Every structure is written in C-alpha cells, then in structure tokens.
C-alpha cells in the first residue's frame, strides 16, 4: 500500500489545516446567529418575546441533553437547575438590588451547585429508574421550598423581578433583550461544543456506552459524571436567569412536572445527545405553548402524543432528519 499517503491527504496541504466539512460547519454555525441579528426589525413585541423564549430554552436544552443524551443517565433534575437559576437571579436582583447582568454568573454557579448535589446519587451508584425517581423527588422538593420559603421566594405568588439591565443600560424592549440572550445562547452552545469535542466528551460517550468498560480502561467515571452534572447545572442555571429577565415574574408553577415534560419534548423532538438537536428542538417546541394559552390541557395532550410518535418513529429526533439532508449536520458527539 505505497499509495496510501496521498489518499490520506488528498489536498496535499499540511496536516494542521481543517478538513472542508469542519470549515463548512463553522461557517454555518456563525451564519445562523449573524442572520438572526436583524430579526428584531421585523417582529412585534409579542413575537419577539416568543423568539427570546426560544433563546432561553437553547441553554436549557443543551444542559439537559448533556446528562440524558451524552452521558445517558436517567436524571430528571433539569427543572430543578432551571428553577434555582431563575430564583437565584431573581433574589439577587430584587432583594439585594444587583443589576441583572451581574446575577447571570451567580445563577449559573447556583445551578452548578445544584448539579453537584443532584449527581450525588449517581456517584453513589444509583442508576436507571431509581435515579429518575430520586431526581424527580429532588425537583419536587425544591418546588415545595419555593412555595414555603415565603420571605425569600415570595411563596406561591412568586416574585416580580426588576427590569434587567446590562452595564447600566436598562433592557426595556424585547428587542434589546434579544441581543443579550443571543450572545448567551451562542456562548452556551460554543462552550458545550468545546467540552463535548474534548476528552471530557469522549469520556461521557465511553460512560454512556459501557460504564464498567470505561472504568476498566482507567477513565475516572465518578469525576466525569460530577463534571457533566455540574456543567449541565451551570448552563441550565444561566437559562434560568435569562428566563427571570424575560418573564419578569418567577413563580413555583413554572418549575413543575409540566415544565419537565416541555424540556423533555425539546430534547427528544430535537434529537437526543445532539447539540444541533437541542437548538432545533428549542426552536420548534418552545413556541408551541404560546398557541395554547386559552386551551388548558391541549398542550399536554399534544406534547404527550408528539413524544410518543417521536420515540416510535424518529428516535434520533429532527437532528437525524437534518443529518440525512446534509452531512454538515451529522453529529460528532454522539453514537448509538
């Protein structure tokens, strides 16, 4: 096989240059947010609000997907991270008078702390349905805390969060919020992409495929599980602080089991374990509840049926359809 070398490097360029597919991906990646920049010129306040909500759900779905998709653990604690982020941001802004942009990082750190807490059962060896039930109980316990810790959280009625501001500028319109949210959502995707492409991501994949084999090969599985939960909590917590800034009113009802299903639907419909899927799922699913405001129950019925259909007929979600359209969308972080 003397002619193997030219085939391996057909362009004849140096080994450090990127293959064309990676360049195309990178172009596409930056083209999407750039093309979105003029969006606020075309949308009224309400439509802009829905677009902002989609941006809120990008980090939420990305964070959720790390644990259930990339790490493959059945942990339902995502709504807990989301709620903690929202409440952390809200309490700091309302009770301590911090401007909103300084609460983003603390909200993420609180989410990361909650992620470390939620990973304790997983580190103690609780898996499968047991882990799902425990994390479900954890989330419900937190919701009970939001309701009962009235002096801090405002109880069932929740609390009103002051208008968000960045570096002294008040974000008074939805369009202004849009640009800040776009930056945060892009950061969440870029940083998570970096992590998933590093040895961390490969370790997650190894743990998902076969935890015992991964441990036997010398991968410190405990450390990576803790890290995945912490990063998931961090990203989702930031999503929570964006949510508080967008809605302006944080209530316990926003973090109940219905929210869990919504986040599940985003991840499942978009594509389990796929970054592209998280973004696509957020775009497709998040807007849906807005259409069902006057019809209680219709949204639950629709999402339930939708998830059933996706699991049966499109188990890899919309991301797998995109991957069939063009190799750019093929996911590099995930294998079956």
């Amino acid at each position, binding site marked *: 096989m003397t002619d193997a070398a030219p085939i391996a490097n057909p362009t004849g360029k140096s080994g450090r240059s990127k293959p064309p597919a990676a360049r195309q991906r990178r172009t596409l990646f930056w083209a999407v947010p750039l093309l979105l920049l003029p969006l606020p010129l075309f949308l009224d306040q309400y439509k802009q609000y829905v677009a902002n909500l989609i941006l809120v759900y990008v980090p939420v779905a990305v964070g959720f997907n790390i644990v259930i998709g990339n790490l493959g653990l059945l942990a339902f604690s995502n709504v807990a991270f989301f709620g903690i982020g929202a409440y952390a941001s809200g309490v700091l802004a309302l009770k301590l008078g911090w401007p909103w942009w300084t609460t983003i990082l603390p909200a993420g750190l609180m989410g990361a702390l909650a992620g470390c807490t939620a990973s304790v059962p997983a580190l103690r060896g609780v898996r*499968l349905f*047991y882990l799902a039930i425990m994390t479900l109980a954890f989330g419900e316990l937190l919701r009970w805390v939001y309701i009962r810790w009235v002096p801090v959280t405002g109880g069932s009625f929740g609390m009103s969060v002051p208008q968000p501001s960045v570096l002294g500028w008040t974000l008074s319109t939805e369009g202004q919020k849009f640009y800040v949210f776009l930056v945060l959502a892009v950061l969440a995707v870029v940083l998570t992409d970096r992590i998933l492409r590093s040895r961390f991501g490969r370790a997650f994949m190894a743990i998902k495929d076969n935890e015992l084999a991964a441990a036997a090969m010398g991968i410190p599985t405990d450390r990576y599980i803790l890290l995945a939960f912490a990063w998931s909590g961090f990203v989702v917590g930031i999503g929570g602080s964006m949510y508080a800034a967008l809605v302006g009113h944080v209530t316990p009802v926003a973090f109940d089991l219905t929210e869990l299903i919504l986040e*599940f639907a985003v991840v499942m419909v978009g594509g389990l374990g796929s970054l592209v899927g998280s973004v696509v799922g957020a775009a497709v699913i998040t807007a849906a509840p807005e259409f069902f405001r006057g019809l209680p*129950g219709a949204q639950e*019925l629709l999402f339930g049926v939708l998830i059933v259909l996706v699991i049966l007929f499109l188990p890899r979600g919309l991301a797998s359809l995109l991957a069939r359209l063009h190799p750019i969308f093929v996911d590099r972080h995930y294998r079956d």
Partner: protein
Amino acid sequence: MLAVLPQLLVSGVATGMLYALIALSLTVGYRATTVVNFGHGDMVMAGAYAALVLVGWGLPYAPALLLALAGLFLLGAATQRALLQPILAGPHLSLAMMALAIGYAMRGAARMEWGSEVVTLPRPYEQDAFMLGTVVLTMDELVIAGVVLALLAALVVIINLTPVGRLIQAVFQSQRGAALVGLDVHSFHGAMWGAGAALGAAGGILLGLLVPLTPDIGVYTLIRGFAAMTLGGFGSPIGAVVGGVVLGVMEKLLGFYVSTVFIDITAYLVTILVLLIWPSGLFGRRAAVRV
C-alpha cells in the same frame, strides 16, 4: 401529646393502605416488564374519572366500578402492547419517556374535559364515624382498609394457588425460558401492565372518596407510590404494602410531633434518603451498582 398517638396510628394506617395499593399496582407492572410506569399516576387519575363518568350515566355503583376497572385494564394492556412492547429492547430512557408521555397525554385529555371544575365522586354509603375508646374511625377509612385487604388477599390467592400464578412465576424467573416452553410472554406483559392499571384505578376511586378530583392527582399519588415502593424495596409486593403503611404512619407522626411541613415532604425525603442510604429497602435487593 401521647394521648393522640393511637388516633394518629389508626388514621396513618388508613392512608397508608391507599399508598400501599398504589405501590402494589406499580409493582405488578414493574415485576412483569422491569419497566417503571412513570405515567402510572395518570392511570390512577383516569380510573377515578372513569368511575365518575359511569356513575354519572346512572349506572349502579358496583357495575360502574367493575366497568371502570375493566376499562383501565384494557387501556393499560393496549398502551403496553402498542407503544411500549415495540421499544422494550431499546434504551431505558425511551421507555421512561414513553410511559411519562402516555400519562401526560391522558392528563391533558382529562384537563380539556374537567380542567376548570371541581368534581367529587359520590359515596355509595353513608359517611359515618365510630368511636373505639378515644379513637375516631371513619367509614371512609374502614372502606379503604377493607377494599385494600380484599384485593391483597385476592392477589395472594392468584399468585400462589392458580395457573395464572404459575405463569407469573415462570416469567419472573426467566422470560426467555418462559418463551421457550411456549408461554406467550408478550401477551403476559400486556396483561400484567393492564392489571397494574386496574389496581391503580381501584386506588384512584378510593382516593376520590377522600379528596376532590383534579387531573393532577396522578402526580401526588405517583410520588407517594414511589416512596412506598422504595421504602419497601423495589419489586417486592410485600414490601410495597408494608412500605405504604409505614409511609402513611410516618407522615402522620412526623406531621404531628415534629412539624406540619412533613405531611407534604415525607414522601420526597423518604425516596431520596432510602435510595441514598439503604438502597435495598425493607424487602428488596440492592438497587445500586458501584463501578
């Protein structure tokens, strides 16, 4: 303070019986298919609403209840065969999500129909209270305890003394072995899932005697069913019953002697602490794996 202890124990056992029934119905489906039904609470809810509808049509109570149970059996068996069986070999996440989504769709359907009104199941008997020394015992508590004990006795008889029981035992021991000797394991899965749904529906109807019905009672029952199951040991029928009764008594005792907040959060705390500290529960096998 100690004077109320007998009263707390009696009412705790009565509520605990209800939790026991929910946990038992979860266990039936879980033991047969090794899939936890995250939508089970909504089967419980559907059972209560089915009874409400049938009684509302003017049916006498007994046939209405039997029809409601039969309906839930069919619903459970049909969803298992059509939606869960095809993905049974797939990842656990899909199975959990599927069960959750089925329950979610049912809850949505119930909310579209009854979301804005508070409905209650009429009692088929006169509400009454009896005094046993200083302890007050209500008719509701007696009915719940009686029904649960009767169902439990029926279950014990079926498992131990009938051909159906031998079939259950065979599939528990080895699904492949049962299939090899010609047993229809797929139908068995569907039937057991249906049986779990019907038992859960019985629990929902009893719950409807105590609290007004809303489409969300499923969540409340599911959390308590899980807590009872983990406390008793996952997959053990006796454990489910004992765990349910212990949970009911714990709620009452902690709620009275320590703080009323425990009435709400005992179930969550029990679930978390038992799985962390004592994963096998009372009658189960170890639930955790260490790598």
